[in-house]
């Protein structure tokens, strides 16, 4: 499942189901991130309005978490696991390979907006590392070729 870029769906409609839920700001942020690919200033204003928070309060919460971004991600997010079990199976070399191949650093997006590279600490696939998650698919015993192959297949 790719990062959403649904510019047509209405922010208020996305947020509405979560307003009455206790702690609903978190699932509302997830819903917007999934639909739009990032949390825009408009989304922050709409969330503030719907939850009766200040914009600062919304910003406070969303910037704490890695999953919510203020800028759009690329169409595909490639998360490389850098936790210990994957380290034991050369995740560092894999990271270097992918950084070199895509010619961007971690937390950056390619100029064609297709790929965002990120690090992640543990995908729970520690038994068959090094692991990479592309959108919601985990690749075990990963290497540069498998990642490139998978990206080709989902295009």
């Amino acid at each position, binding site marked *: 499942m790719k990062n959403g870029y649904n510019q047509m769906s209405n922010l208020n409609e996305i947020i509405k189901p979560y307003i009455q*839920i*206790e*702690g*609903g*700001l*978190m*699932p509302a*942020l*997830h819903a917007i991130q999934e639909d739009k690919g990032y949390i825009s200033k408009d989304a922050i204003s709409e969330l503030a309005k719907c939850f009766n928070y200040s914009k600062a309060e919304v910003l*406070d*919460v969303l910037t*704490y*978490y*890695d*999953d*919510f971004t203020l800028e759009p991600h690329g169409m595909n997010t490639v998360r490389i696991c850098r*936790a*210990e*079990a*994957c*380290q*034991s*199976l050369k995740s560092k070399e894999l990271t270097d390979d992918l950084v070199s191949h895509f010619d961007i650093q971690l937390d950056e997006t390619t100029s064609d907006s297709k790929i965002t590279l990120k690090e*992640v*600490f*543990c*995908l*729970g*696939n*520690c*038994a*068959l*590392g090094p*692991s990479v*998650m592309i959108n*919601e*698919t*985990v*690749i*075990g*015993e990963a290497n540069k070729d498998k990642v490139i192959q998978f990206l080709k297949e989902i295009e």
Partner: protein
Amino acid sequence: MKIYIPNETTSNSVGANHFNTIISNLEGIENIELVRNGSWGAFWLEPFIEVERDGNRIGTCYKDIDLSHLRTIEDFLGDFDSREPFDISEIDFIKKQKRIVFSRIGLGDPLDINLYRENGGFESLKKALSLESQTVIDKVKESGLTGRGGAAFPTGIKMQTVHDQNSPIKYLACNADEGDGGTFSDRLIMESDPFALIEGMAIAAYAVGASKGYLYLRSEYPLAKRFLTSAIDIANKNNLLGSSILSSNFDFEIDLRIGAGSYVCGEETAMMESIEGRRGLVRSKPPLPAINGLFNKPTLINNVVTLATIPPLLNGSLSDFSGMGSGKSIGTMPFQLCGNILQSGLVETGFDISIGEMIEIFGKETKSGKPIHAVQIGGPLGLYLSSEMMSTKLTVESLQSIKGSVGHGGIVIFDDSVEMSEQAKFAMEFCSKESCGKCTPCRIGSIRGVEIIERLQKDKSSQEDIGLLHDLCQTMEATSLCAMGGMTPNPIYSIINNFPGELTKE
């Protein structure tokens, strides 16, 4: 005839979904039942595809095998039989375990509620509902169960505290934010036996008087999210969740909440902040969550495995469980053996096993074939054992006595290509990246820790930097708000002590 192809993150990561597509499209598949089962947790054998014929079920590993030439099911069966398939329950890796909590993973479709019931599922919930809530708590106390998330706190005592609070509203919160590197037991239960967790949550909620449960799942587990969402839905439709469960007076609903990329939200108070829709900052204690927790109400917080252990305890396994081990190390622990190890996977055994035995019996040797140099136990806040410490027992007490902990049960093997100074640097780097930022020793200390270790990597004998590192570790340990900052020095101390000369030359 049935064909089993697992649908689980690790199996899929090495092609299970791909094989499912191929086999689903073979001629003749219409006459065969294709089951997407859970994983058996013997991950080095994944994707483990099985065939059941006339009550005989055998399988084999299909990793990296090219089946693109197959046209019919007969083709597949011919290929399958040529690979000497075997009964997975007969291999040492599985046979020598004591699977009480993980007894059903791999059997069949994790969402097949009838299969779950046929294997004892929901009998414990039925039994619990017929007992007084205090009786349920007494049984948990009797079992000797302690928290499997890392704190090893007696579960029964925690339940008693929540039970005794005088509040009409109480909550249960299941901590499924399994963030430690080298751990996957929570994920495996959630994907391959989700009803076990749901049943455990329902029983625990009944025991303490909670009417609502929050299941806080990390966002890095999308497949677990799908399985849990479906399992909760099925349970609701079958009167196993919701109002008047199994025609009793007990109402209980589960609300699945997803994290958003923060390790600290696996700390119980930060988790509560996150569920309440806030920044995942750590709260001070007192008050204890059991007294004043989620939304200011008494809240029972337990780890996934702890909750999934409760149903077997009420369904015949109590004496088996409580008869194993002693002290805080009673019962079984689902160790997760991984990293650079040939036979990686889920190993549920008693605690009274040494790390050497764990490797000899279950893991065998490194995947690379090179000698083992270090073993990390208990995740990023645990410790590193050297190859000379293989007789160390994996009990809570034994590891605590060398300033370590069982933690979540993760065991990561490193061969001799590992640079221990890099591991020490990672301990501080991880802390700095995941720090919530509230308290100074963790927020600033962790960054300084990375910087000091980088200098030590250039000159291991710099007395000034060695002194700085010791001071820093002591300060973080003595003044941090939570275990994140407070225990980050532990892996570093273990590297200094167990690998002399590899980080510091004192």
